[in-house]
């Protein structure tokens, strides 16, 4: 009873390529509790979508979990066969709201037919019970119950997205994985979608793994967060701890890169370069080449994700300078040597 809903421990995922093994996720660890909204953030190339796919056994053919464990309610699931995943986990335990969700409904099938197909494959429910569950969930996401027999084209874009959320939720899964669920939508529609996701949190005790490049959405809507950079989890913890007391340079520079309409003139952080593609075992900090505070040690081994020792026990950072980087940043900005970005000093010393 006490096992967390999902535990990811030291997970490494690699893709076989012509150049060798490409590492998309390296040594990632975090835990999602029951009823928790967990945000996984990072820019493109961070490995966040790969990690999510690994959880439901949805990696591309050339991808595999090469080490580490994925535990769902205490049971290891990284080696489960396709049939087992289908029979036991997918949809009724862990469901998925995909990234390009506008295209993920079958245009030739009524939404209720698509629900029936999912229900028959993954549960023993009768068609009538499936319809009732879908109707209830249509209500939760703000669609008229009478529209479950509509075809996808009869819905507007935002309504389609809500129909997809209803399909992801109607079998009452314990965990929903949403990969950039609102990225293609305007802000008002995005806010409507999150209003309905909030509602499922209170009405069904569902956990959410929200994958997004947009940390604003995570700080607003999630209880906890992990920030990834080029295959590594750089920092994780409660949203409040990571927001108030960030330790990893990538975490706080990433956070400071986001505009906040409350401060329209605040200078936005720029992170030079881009995430590297990493082949084979990752034995460096993947952020070292972009980090203003990097030292030799950062390139000698991959830093471990260690607790940072504040009030939040889950708060951890993978940085050898975790105890001083943020103070240095606050004191000197991202230009510790006095060269580079700022205007050059008048005299050299």
């Amino acid at each position: 009873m006490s096992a967390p809903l999902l535990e990811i421990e030291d997970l490494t995922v690699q893709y076989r390529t012509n150049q060798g093994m490409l590492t998309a996720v390296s040594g990632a660890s975090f835990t999602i509790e029951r009823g928790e909204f967990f945000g996984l953030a990072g820019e493109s190339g961070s490995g966040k979508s790969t990690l999510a796919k690994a959880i439901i056994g949805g990696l591309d053919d050339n991808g595999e979990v090469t080490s580490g464990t994925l535990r769902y309610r205490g049971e290891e699931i990284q080696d489960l066969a396709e049939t087992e995943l289908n029979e036991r986990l997918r949809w009724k335990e862990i469901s998925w709201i995909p990234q390009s969700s506008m295209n993920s409904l079958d245009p030739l099938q009524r939404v209720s037919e698509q629900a029936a197909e999912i229900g028959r494959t993954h549960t023993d429910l009768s068609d009538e019970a499936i319809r009732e569950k879908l109707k209830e969930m249509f209500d939760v996401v703000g669609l008229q119950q009478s529209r479950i027999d509509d075809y996808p084209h009869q819905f507007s874009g935002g309504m389609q997205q809500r129909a997809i959320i209803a399909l992801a939720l109607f079998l009452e899964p314990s965990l929903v994985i949403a990969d950039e669920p609102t990225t293609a939508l305007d802000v008002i529609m995005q806010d409507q979608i999150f209003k309905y996701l909030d509602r499922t949190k209170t009405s069904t005790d569902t956990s959410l793994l929200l994958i997004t490049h947009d940390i604003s959405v995570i700080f607003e809507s999630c209880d906890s967060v992990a920030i990834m950079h080029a295959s590594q989890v750089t920092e994780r913890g409660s949203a409040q701890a990571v927001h108030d007391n960030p330790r990893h340079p990538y975490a706080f520079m990433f956070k400071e890169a986001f505009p906040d309409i409350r401060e329209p003139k605040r200078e936005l952080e720029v992170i030079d370069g881009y995430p590297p593609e990493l082949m084979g075992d990752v034995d460096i900090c993947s952020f070292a080449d972009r980090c203003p505070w990097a030292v030799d040690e950062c390139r000698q081994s991959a830093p471990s994700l260690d607790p940072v020792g504040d009030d939040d026990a889950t708060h951890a950072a993978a940085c050898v300078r975790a105890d001083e980087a943020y103070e240095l940043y606050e004191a000197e900005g991202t230009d510790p040597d006095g060269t580079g970005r700022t205007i050059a000093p008048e005299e050299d010393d």
Partner: protein
Amino acid sequence: MSNDPPLLEIRNLEKYFEESSNVLDVLMRREPSQIQAVDDVSLTLEENDSAAVIGESGCGKTTLLLTLIGLHDATGGDIYYKGQPVSEFDKSDWREYRSNVQVIFQDPFNSLDPKMTVAESLKEPLKIHGIGDRDRRVREVLEHVELSPPEKYLGRKPANLSGGEKQRVSIGRALVLEPDVILADEPVSMLDVSTQAAVLNTMKNLIDEFGVSMLYISHDLSTVSYISEVVNVMYLGRVVESAPTEQILADPKHPYTEALVSAIPVPDPHYNRERTEMSGAPRDPVDLGEGCRFRDRCPAVIPPDDLEIPQAAYREVIAFRERLARDDLTLDRVRAELDDSTDTDALAAALREEYFDHDLMGENDAVLDTALSALAAGDGDRAGDLLRGRFESVCEQTPADVTTDDEWTVACHYYDDDTQIEEKRVPTTD
């Protein structure tokens, strides 16, 4: 100097499309529907100035851009470049205009030719316009857009550039002809946040240091303050509010702008932002007719003076009337769910169930009942008349622009009696 005409002026610009008609439409002699993509938009861009156009998808901002670069012909109003109307341009005027007005497109991943090197991409516009000294110009431009040293980038193809670098090349390509005006269509929306700020800074520098004027078109209000001093908010083809950027973010006047600003996520777990009150999406811009375009979704739509009705209930009536007028009610489906599809009383009750969550009182209730019965009996026109007679809103007339001394313009009936928009008069929603 001050008497010079503005660099670029859009006056009452209108771009309507006719919806394609089919054989049946011709036989029935139906008028083709009008898609009112841009409707009576006016904007001015002075030299070394920047203005933003903000709106959701479908608001007409991209049509506005395409009309500005001559890919669409305006169906009304005009565009003036240095005082000269675009509609009177001859071939050489167009040539000059196209070299002086440049565009940066949204998608740096598809807007560069994958087979061309950076140097070739940047030289192409110079060749087309017959400008010499190309090597030097291209190097200079690369420095300006912070791709330095230029040697590092000249021989690269797009596949070997990051997203931010590609967008810098696109900006360089727009800049290489030394234009007066740059039209930027969502230039950072496809970039990672780590490079977004750097590209915004580059564009801001073009305005500050190179005297370029910029029209910044975006759906994103949160980054607009980094580019532009003035924001125009568009909704369904019209500018509903225009004001200095910081003021509009802090104190939006138009109910739509307010909804838009308040839906922007705030990156702070301690800040308790309310989720939006709005439902649905903007309708299609087809045959919009008179009136405020936002009235069917407006949280503050104005009831007649003598009508006593709670705002939420009134909103439902307005939304229902809009759907009725647009023939957008799901009558057939509601009827199909009935036990007896000929039972008009049951149909009226089911319609009420479907479209009305709030109860009405007294005469309001009686009028709605009569109207729904008429509709159930097949007389939609009478239902519409009955409802209009009781519930007609001033918002069904097109609101005029009200402008203050400090260049704040808003088109909303809440400000009708007020030439000075001193304080927000829109009541907070219930």
